[in-house]
């Protein structure tokens, strides 16, 4: 295990931590969602990097021959298609949850008047204390 063989994973971990830091340290909900997007992209990158084969090409067959007799060249190295498929799903699901998260942030803004998390928590606590006897 050397720098030359593992530095990709370490850079990806650094990116992950940058995203995680934004989620934890920033009070603004929209900024947190941006950090979450960064975190998500770097996790996807980690999985995709595991599927790469050195000297391999994209997992699309190189066809030799013409028309109906075209035959794929199975002797060259291809990258593993399974992580790509899983990460395609992950990207699309990520955008779906991002859209929902942003919609929730808009409603929070309309209900509480702010999107800073500590102010929202304070208002929530004050509301609950005023409601419960």
């Amino acid at each position, binding site marked *: 295990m050397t720098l030359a*063989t*593992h530095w*990709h*994973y*370490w*850079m990806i971990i*650094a990116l992950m*931590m*940058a995203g995680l*830091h*934004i989620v*934890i*340290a920033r*009070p*603004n909900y*929209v*900024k947190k969602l*941006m*950090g979450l*997007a*960064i975190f998500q*992209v770097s996790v*996807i*990158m980690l999985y*995709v*990097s595991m599927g*790469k*084969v*050195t*000297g*391999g090409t*994209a*997992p*699309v*067959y190189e066809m030799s021959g013409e028309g109906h007799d075209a035959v*794929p060249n199975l002797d060259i190295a291809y*990258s*593993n*298609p*399974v*992580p*790509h*498929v899983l*990460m*395609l799903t992950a*990207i*699309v*699901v990520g*955008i*779906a*949850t991002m859209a*929902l998260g*942003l*919609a929730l*942030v*808009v409603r929070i*803004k*309309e209900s509480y008047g*702010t*999107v800073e998390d500590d102010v929202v928590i304070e208002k929530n606590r004050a509301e609950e204390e005023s409601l419960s006897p």
Partner: protein
Amino acid sequence: MSEVPLEAVLFVFLLIVGIVVGRLRNLFSAAMLTGIFSFLSAGLFTLMTAVDVAFTEAAVGAGISTVLFLATLALTDDTERESDRSWLAIGVVSLTGLALFFGTFDMPAYGSPDAPIHEGVGRHYLMHSWDEIGLPNVVTSVLASYRGFDTFGELAVVFTAGIGVTLLLRSKKAVMGPGAKPIPQRSRAPYVREMPVVRAVGKVMLPFILLFALYVQAHGDFGPGGGFQAGVVFAAGFVLYGLIWGPRAVQQIAPERLLEAGMSIGLLLYGCVGVAALFAGGTYLDYSAFTPEHPTHGQHWGIFLVELGVGITVSAVMLVIYFVFTARPRPRLPKKTPEQSVAPAPRLTAIPELPTEGAEERP
């Protein structure tokens, strides 16, 4: 030729962008930088030979996601205040990073062909998908046929997101009934209306964007592409139209009722193809049952229909989300005190003195 320098440069840029996004207080710039982050990572994915993933990330992350962030920022605050919990955050992040760093010790070398991940289904798909399915793009055959049920669930998630956003943000006042006041020929978006260049070029680009979306939909079998990317690019064309002419103009050409129907029809198509396979004698989503004498033909048909369903639902959901976000009434400003606006306009330069001798000096 070694790709290491290129990958290293991209990684460094990504790290810089990731750190700067956290530190920027102007959220508009942060949203743009998030789009740049997605775009740079799409470049990295291409270097890692994940072309389908790169395509989807560029379309989704750098396109739709940025529009959604901007739409949210238009409804909430533009800037962020300072926070004082940096030390706790750095501590937690360092611990987690250290744990993950130790976790990578057991991982195989990057790009090693003997990695455990390559034994098993990956090799089987690469070796046998030509005989069993017959498509050059192995990712599409895995996505739509081998792991077709997974993709069905993913489409359901997209559909659920569309429904969820509609439930959260759909406003009574935003619904355009059939008798609503028509939009005049000139654009209603006030400050964009005086941009003839943007309007002309938008009109030129729009058919190419839509045609490209159809091309991506059809050629997902032969190269990077497929239903998701096509749906996102198709929606992006309409979003471009909406950015130039205003969202109400888009609602005239893509009525919301049609989009809501489209959301459901795509998912229904996907499910029905599976059920049709059941009636044809195979298991759920086993497309070979359609043509038992030529299994690959049935696979082609099944994949075509399934990707069509994916494309329809994804484009409809993206457009519905765009509509719902932009139709949400803005926070109202009380007319009496204009200084108490939500986000004061940042003055980047001072306004110079009005030239009083302007009338004589003009040639």
